[in-house]
């Protein structure tokens, strides 16, 4: 099959999953190229988060496979292995380590060896300190770097999680609703940041915020009932009658 030989970054091939008989993902296929940023939209319960669960190994699909960089079948790996292959994720509900400081959250996420003993004997070096300082600047949490993550506001937690993703420096970023709970200005900021990231990473963004999607200005996939409803530029997708019917409304 030429698709597999062409080695796209991510290739979902006929993936299905059901929960107690309810089909959350239904024969879903999708290709993400290297360096591509893709926006995913779709009504609540369309299966967007579930799709990310499958890519990151949280949920095992009943059928189908997910190929990463051509021939690695992600469905055969667990969460940690997939993360170490270079897939990072930001969760829909911000999840940070509440009893760690902002700084420590980033230290934990920093790209590097993940073994028990390398963690035990880990020494922070100048390079690591610098990149953490950079990230803190990007996510604008320098002044709160010693605060406990539990004490951050919702929006700040969103930023921190984005920062953790940056620290991880993965090949593919899965970003689930990054701007939920952010102000308009911050939303614009985030779009800018993501566009910057996408220059040397591949990104999948799930969002409901249409102005944000417009700002990203990338190829859009609309999911509904666990399958692709429409795919193309935002203008194309937004004009698709099926999308209007099931998602955007008239």
């Amino acid at each position, binding site marked *: 099959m030429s698709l597999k030989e062409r080695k796209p970054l991510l290739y979902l091939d006929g993936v299905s999953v059901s929960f107690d008989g309810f089909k959350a993902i239904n024969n879903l296929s999708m290709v993400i190229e290297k360096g591509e940023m893709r926006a995913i939209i779709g009504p609540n319960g369309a299966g967007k988060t579930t799709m990310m669960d499958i890519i990151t190994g*949280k949920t095992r699909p009943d059928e189908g496979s997910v190929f990463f960089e051509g021939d690695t079948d992600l469905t055969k790996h667990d969460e940690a292995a997939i993360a170490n292959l270079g897939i990072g994720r930001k969760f829909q509900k911000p*999840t940070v380590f509440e009893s760690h400081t902002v700084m420590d959250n980033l230290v*934990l*996420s920093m790209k590097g060896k993940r073994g*028990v003993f390398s963690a035990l004997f880990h020494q922070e070096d100048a390079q690591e300190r610098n990149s953490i300082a950079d990230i803190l600047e990007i996510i604008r949490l320098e002044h709160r770097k010693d605060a406990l993550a539990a*004490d951050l506001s919702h929006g700040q937690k969103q930023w921190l999680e984005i920062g953790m993703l940056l620290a991880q420096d993965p090949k593919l970023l899965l970003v689930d609703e990054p701007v939920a709970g952010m102000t308009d200005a911050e939303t614009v900021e985030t779009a800018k940041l993501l566009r910057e990231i996408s220059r040397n990473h591949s990104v999948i963004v799930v969002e409901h915020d249409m102005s944000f999607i417009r700002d990203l200005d990338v190829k859009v996939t609309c999911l509904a009932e666990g399958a692709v409803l429409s795919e193309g530029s935002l203008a194309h997708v937004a004009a698709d009658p099926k999308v209007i019917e099931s998602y955007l409304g008239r």
Partner: protein
Amino acid sequence: MISRYLFQALDKRAFWVAVALMVFAVLVPLLNLVVPDGHPLHVPDYLVGLLGKYLCYAMLALALDLVWGYCGILSLGHGAFFALGGYAMGMYLMRQIGDRGVYANPVLPDFMVFLNWEKLPWFWYGFDQFWFAMVMVVVVPAVLAFVLGWLAFRSRVTGVYLSIITQAMTYALLLAFFRNDMGFGGNNGLTDFKDILGFSLQSSGTRAVLFALSALALAGTLVLCSLIVRSKLGKVMIAVRDAESRTRFLGYRVEHVKLFAFVLSAMIAGLAGALYVPQVGIINPGEFAPANSIDVVIWTAVGGRGTLIGPIIGAFLVSGGKSYFTAAFPDLWLFALGGLFVIVTLFMPKGVIGLLGQLKGLASKMPRKNADKPLPAKPEAAE
């Protein structure tokens, strides 16, 4: 030089407590051996024994805290590791008795002669060597912890399920060690020890040295735990405790982290048991009783879990209270202990240490927001 390094690497409290323990290790034996009887500063023999026992308990509590307080694994079977270490030591002490036993058999311990056994079972080989016994003191608990942990953590058995399995483990061991044909002395256990490395266990000198060793071992454990907890691995452990699955998505092998903590903790517990047995002079299957393991949990909880000093304070407070109550009001002890469980879980989730922190916070009118905050109810909110 080293102390300077440690001072920087450890948290200050842990450092000072370790120093205090070392002073203790020298001072108490001195006050016991050198200061004459009747002098107000004299420490009587029984007190040395009692404090030595508490030191071992504190070590056990610290071991439990490493897995529970820092890694979120509530083990209800840590008494088993303690007892296994104790049995390994007991086996050495048994073989030291030699032909001074009641039946004067140079090789077989009395209970085996009593059971008409002809020769030493294979698993008793080597225990006449001190070094071998000391290796077994940590290796046996480590192997058990490794096997159990490897099975459990790999299949993601967590929370109360894990607690129940660990409880079942110690219960199964309790039943097993009660059996005579296991070859560990049945329900009488191992006792009537004579000497250790040639020093009589009855002499005050030996007992003072054992005390000092216990204090030093506790100090060492404290330093070790502190180094671990302050390393990046310690941060990973806390991350695992608070949001296990989120840690996985960062690429950490949660099961390896837990296994490391669990095995190390079991080894510390085994060592504590080995120091405990020569001081109390007996080890029997009762040490495997599930209630014992739960007592360790309450020591840790009372002192303050997730801190290094808390378990030590808790072990001393609760076992001290037990010694006092069971002598003064024997009927009230279980009421007190039961009440303690309820009160600590309801009102002092961070234990005595947390309480002190709160008081300090109140005093300086700087509410420490997190001091009394329960751990996140549903850490698995990674969606």
